[in-house]
């Protein structure tokens, strides 16, 4: 936005609270997702990663707190709201229909029509352009049924489907879980390409190798609190593990790391 300073992140989350009955899932969570950077969200099971993701994606409504999109306060009440803003989420199960081909999956729910009938040619061209721009070249034909694709190719299709709609923020839930070495590398390359396009990317991952391979910034949740958030250079794998497992109580000084976010976003 022109009337904000350049360091204003694409999405700014402030003081997000969410509870389910007596369980406090998120407590005063702050998170910044700057454009053109990959933010990795880490945390042990039950730390609140999924809940935070679903609040951003409009599936859950936070109890308190505010989100700012390009500096403006926004309410994301439904997944539709989220995609209208330009937030797309790639869930772990990818949500692809095996019996449909790549083009059909990428346009599912947003098919283009010509005289009331599906415009297959137009959709095929657009899908091919998107895949080419992401340099997804390993698929032989975009008319292949998704059932015939490898895990990495499926992930690529799911990501291409997400970026096709002028999205500005892509959230990826465990994109490399259950993938082999080569496929993991393909997916991480894809994440870097999204960054090159100027998109904000949030990757949820347990795998610290992947996190350090691809992240610009790292955010760590511990029991529903954001215990650390900073440029990757401020962390090493050991400290991330400490934050994930103890909330950083061993390193009291580090709890304030999140304060300097907007000045530390550049590597």
């Amino acid at each position, binding site marked *: 936005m022109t009337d904000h300073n350049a360091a204003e992140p694409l999405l700014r989350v402030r003081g997000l609270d969410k509870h389910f009955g007596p369980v406090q899932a998120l407590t005063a969570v702050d998170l910044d997702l700057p454009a053109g950077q990959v933010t990795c969200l880490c945390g042990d099971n039950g730390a609140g990663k999924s809940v935070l993701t679903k609040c951003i994606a409009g599936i859950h409504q936070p109890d308190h707190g505010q989100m700012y999109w390009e500096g403006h306060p926004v309410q994301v009440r439904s997944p539709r709201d989220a995609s209208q803003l330009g937030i797309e989420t790639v869930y772990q199960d990818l*949500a692809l*229909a095996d019996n*449909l081909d790549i083009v059909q999956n990428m346009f*599912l729910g947003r098919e283009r029509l010509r005289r*009331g009938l599906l415009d297959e040619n137009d959709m095929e061209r657009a899908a091919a352009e998107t895949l080419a721009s992401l340099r997804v070249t390993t698929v032989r034909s975009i008319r292949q049924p998704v059932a*015939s694709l490898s*895990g990495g190719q499926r992930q690529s299709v799911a990501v291409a489907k997400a970026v096709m709609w002028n999205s500005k923020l892509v959230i990826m839930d465990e994109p490399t879980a259950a993938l082999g070495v080569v*496929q993991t590398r393909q997916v991480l390359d894809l994440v870097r390409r999204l960054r090159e396009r100027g998109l904000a990317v949030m990757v949820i991952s347990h795998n610290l190798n992947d996190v350090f391979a691809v992240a610009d910034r790292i955010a760590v949740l511990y029991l529903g609190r954001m215990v650390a958030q900073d440029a990757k250079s401020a962390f090493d794998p050991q400290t991330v593990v400490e934050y994930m497992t103890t909330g950083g109580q061993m390193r009291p000084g580090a709890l304030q790391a999140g304060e300097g976010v907007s000045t530390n976003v550049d590597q």
Partner: protein
Amino acid sequence: MSTSEAPERQADPTAAPEAAAVEVPPGIVAQNLGEYLQGWWARVRGGDSGLLPVIGGLLVIIVVFQAISPEHVFLSAGNLVNLFQQSAVFMVLAMAEGFVLLLGEIDLSVGYVAAVGAVIAVQLVQPSTTKWPWWAAIIAGLAACCGIGAMQGSLVTRLRVPSFVVTLAGLLVFNGVMLILLLLGPFSGYPSLTSTGRGNPQVLYNLMWGTIDPIVSWVAMVVIVGLLGLNLWLRDARRRGSGLVAPPVSLTIIKIALMAVIGITVVAICNVNRAAVGTLEGVPWVIAIVLAVLGAWTVLLERTRYGRYVYAIGGNPEAARRAGVDLTNVRTLAFVLCSFTAGIGGLLYASLLGGMSNNVNGGQLVLYAVAAAVIGGTSLFGGRGRVIHGVLGGLVIGAIYNGTYLLGLAVQWQFIVTGLVLVAAVTIDSLSRRGATSGSAARA
């Protein structure tokens, strides 16, 4: 393809690259006819055989019955038309069942829903009672079927009752409803379409038995084949022109030629005088009706958003839901379309029988409908199958029915042969699923 693929879940590690090599639709990657045929053969070997098993099965059945039928009467013009008339009910009911099978659901009530629609139409046209015009009676019968479909569909989609149970109850309920409707009026439970010989009942009777004038048959065939061929040619030409990978010109020409050959053959056979005494020639109306249903539902399922959503829900309902598809309405409408199409099948059945009676066995009809759809190549697990599969499967069942009848075999042999063909078809379906899909194998 990258050279090393990681194992997918617990699937065979070699499955993914192999499947990727064979599952590419040959019409997309092939640039000339040779490559197209190679690609097609690779796909068949990989298990995604499309129409091949049902056409192969049909050929075997034809050859066997032609060889063993008395005086080789099986392939005579008269018997072929007869065979098609007997198959038409199975074809239309199989197309009806296809809508719910694609969703991974089942409708056990189509037989009696068809019968209810038919009884309503047959009762309403009776000149001695209600005297409705034929078109109003047909609309009323089909509307009743739509209502039944909406009711059963709502129970399945909104109240989440399993479709098996809802439609099993429907099978019983509509059997009873059919019997009640049959007893209305002064017909002792046998409202007939033939007793008066003229007027509105005659129109319903002609759905199956009426014929189109031979000259008109030829003209209509030329027009239909011409329009379909033109449409196919323009579609392929536009793909070639717009730089997308398109089927080779020779293939387009072969497809159009094939359509023309089939059209000419069908009309030529139907225009042979097949009456022992007098004249009986021309294409039966029922062929036009089946083609119309086939064409309409093929366009609906393969060329519209609604059809795309039906396939998507059959493949992965969660993906469809996240894509913003209204699952409840798409599913409910599929049950409505199923019952509506069943109603058309019921009208044809009433016409075939020349009326309605309590001899109509809707329980057996539904089994034949499901069998025809599956024999044709529709998957019981949802998401796979085309409208044409129901038509070809119906033709297989009709051919067995007709052939065993010609041989003078008792009905038990017809059941046994049909059952064996069904088992063979389902075995092919599950084998091809195992061979052709790797990721979905883990899901299923």
